[in-house]
């Protein structure tokens, strides 16, 4: 395995523990204010404002609170968290510790996907090193009243556990079935206690913001999508890997950087994201236009978009937890529809029925998995209808 890192990353320019020291020099509310002012939004893809989340958990009254790092990076085409876990683990743990200080938690849990078990020894060694350096444990950096430690818990191969309440169910020893929200984890999280669940990258950026200040972060990116973002780029391009770009970059600019100018389409946001065809490459990657957790899969001119769609729908049929009907049954129906298209035996009327089914799933599914699983179906059917209909093989 070679490093996926392409180009310069801000993470390698931040001095060790600069963020933690700066954070502990502030009061908890000042720190949360700083994170809020930076405009940082969740880097897993949902884009929830991190400062708001921390503030809600911080103001909850409870003796026990938790910081959970979501390292269940399962979205197809996403691998930037793997890079952080492998090469910037200290920064991540620093971010978790800062989060712990901000909300008043004593314990952090890193939920690491089972597929990344090979990263665990390195992460445990980093944790041990941090305990010895008084960066974890009792009185972090000698600060009276701030005890914080981090434990690693392993996933066992379930995509749905990337959904925050399913992740908490899994941490508690149950099937990874999402809960109803509300209540949200910020007041009823792990063991029923206030919990912040943040993506790996979000926590790493939080540490950078603590070190470099909100103003630095805010002036990168767009008004509604502040800051730099890591992008996981794969597929038909000459330089796949992990890149850092400011949010608000256009699809075309990104493709130029990665050597994918000849693409006919790009899947933004992984299997649960949307397919963006070449005529729309001037659109921007930002929460206000095309939101993304950073997964970019490039499709060259020769790619069969039906094969792509089939791959996505097989994925969702396999990974649906089966708890709610729209997702469990709907994905199977959409996959059957793809198989009809493959045989060239799908009428336009039936395809339109399937699109309506997809819209129903978006509305009626319990969690983000079912709500977003029809997105690739709907966008590929919309953009590449002439490629899909009336096949004779």
């Amino acid at each position, binding site marked *: *395995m*070679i490093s*996926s890192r392409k180009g310069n990353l801000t993470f390698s320019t931040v001095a060790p523990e600069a963020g933690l020291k700066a954070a502990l020099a502030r009061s908890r509310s000042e720190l949360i204010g700083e994170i809020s002012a930076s405009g940082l939004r969740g880097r897993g893809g949902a884009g929830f404002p991190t400062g708001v989340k921390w503030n809600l958990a911080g103001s909850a009254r409870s003796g026990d609170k938790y910081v959970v790092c979501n390292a269940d*990076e*399962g*979205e*197809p*085409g*996403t*691998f930037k*968290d*793997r890079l952080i876990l492998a090469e910037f683990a200290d920064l991540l743990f620093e971010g978790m510790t800062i989060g712990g200080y901000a909300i008043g938690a004593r314990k952090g849990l890193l939920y690491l*996907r*089972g*597929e*990344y*078990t*090979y990263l665990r020894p390195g992460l445990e060694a980093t944790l041990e090193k941090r305990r010895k350096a008084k960066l974890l444990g009792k009185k972090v950096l000698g600060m009276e009243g701030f005890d914080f430690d981090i434990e690693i*818990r*392993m*996933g*066992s*191969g*379930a*995509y749905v556990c990337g959904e925050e309440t399913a992740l908490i169910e*899994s*941490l*508690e*020893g*149950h*099937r*990874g*079935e999402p809960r109803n929200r509300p209540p949200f984890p910020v007041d009823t999280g792990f*063991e029923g206690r206030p919990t912040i669940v943040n993506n790996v990258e979000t926590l790493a950026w939080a540490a950078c913001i603590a070190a470099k200040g909100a103003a630095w972060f805010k002036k990168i990116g767009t008004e509604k999508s502040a800051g730099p973002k890591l992008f*996981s*780029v*794969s*597929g*038909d391009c000459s330089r*796949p*890997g*992990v890149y850092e770009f400011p949010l608000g970059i256009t699809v075309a600019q990104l493709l130029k950087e990665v050597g994918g100018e000849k693409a006919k389409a790009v*899947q933004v946001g992984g*299997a649960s994201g949307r397919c963006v065809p070449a005529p729309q490459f001037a659109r921007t990657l930002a929460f206000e236009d095309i939101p993304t957790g950073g997964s970019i*899969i490039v499709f060259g001119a020769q*790619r069969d978009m039906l*094969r*792509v769609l089939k*791959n*996505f729908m*097989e*994925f969702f049929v*396999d*990974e649906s*937890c089966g708890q709610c009907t729209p997702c469990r049954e709907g994905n199977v129906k959409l996959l059957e529809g793809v198989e009809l298209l493959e045989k060239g035996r799908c009428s336009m009327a039936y395809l339109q029925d399937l699109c309506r089914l997809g819209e129903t799933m978006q509305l009626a599914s319990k969690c983000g998995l079912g709500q977003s699983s029809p997105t690739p179906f709907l966008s590929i059917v919309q953009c590449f209808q002439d490629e899909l209909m009336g096949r004779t093989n």
Partner: protein
Amino acid sequence: MLVSEHVRLAKDIEELVSRYGRGREALIPILQEVQRKYAHISSHAMQVIADQLDIHPVEVHSVVSFYAFLNARAQGRFVIRLCRTISCDMAGKDRVARQLENDLGIKFGETTPDSKFTLEWANCLGMCDQGPALLVNDQVYTAVTPEQVHEILEQCRRTFSPHALAAQEQHHV
């Protein structure tokens, strides 16, 4: 299962319970360790774990059946999981899959008669820029070509000796 194996399993589970505790949140870590050591979680193991944690065995089974990496059926010493998700698919995972089936003489979802290898599909392994990717137990292999399959399997066979196995188990439990 031999009586002595029952005793060994019970002793291992007791040891795990003393390490992780009897709370419900200990269940998955315990199951992961049993899976690792015994290559599956037998119904007997589920019963013992349920007794130790004071929950119904059905609760244990419901968790085992949910997660792809926990198995009630015996798996091989080496579980090979080939990524089938889009980027690895575009990078040519079908030919690697074909060669794995050819060299092992089994289909996906099956275990070789000598219990050495289990072949499975995996969903996205997070190696999308270096596909096709596969896992052999916890170890990741990237940019795998069909002709490399033979060497990967040979590497496994070389480590599968009684001495290597004993060392592995001491390390894990």
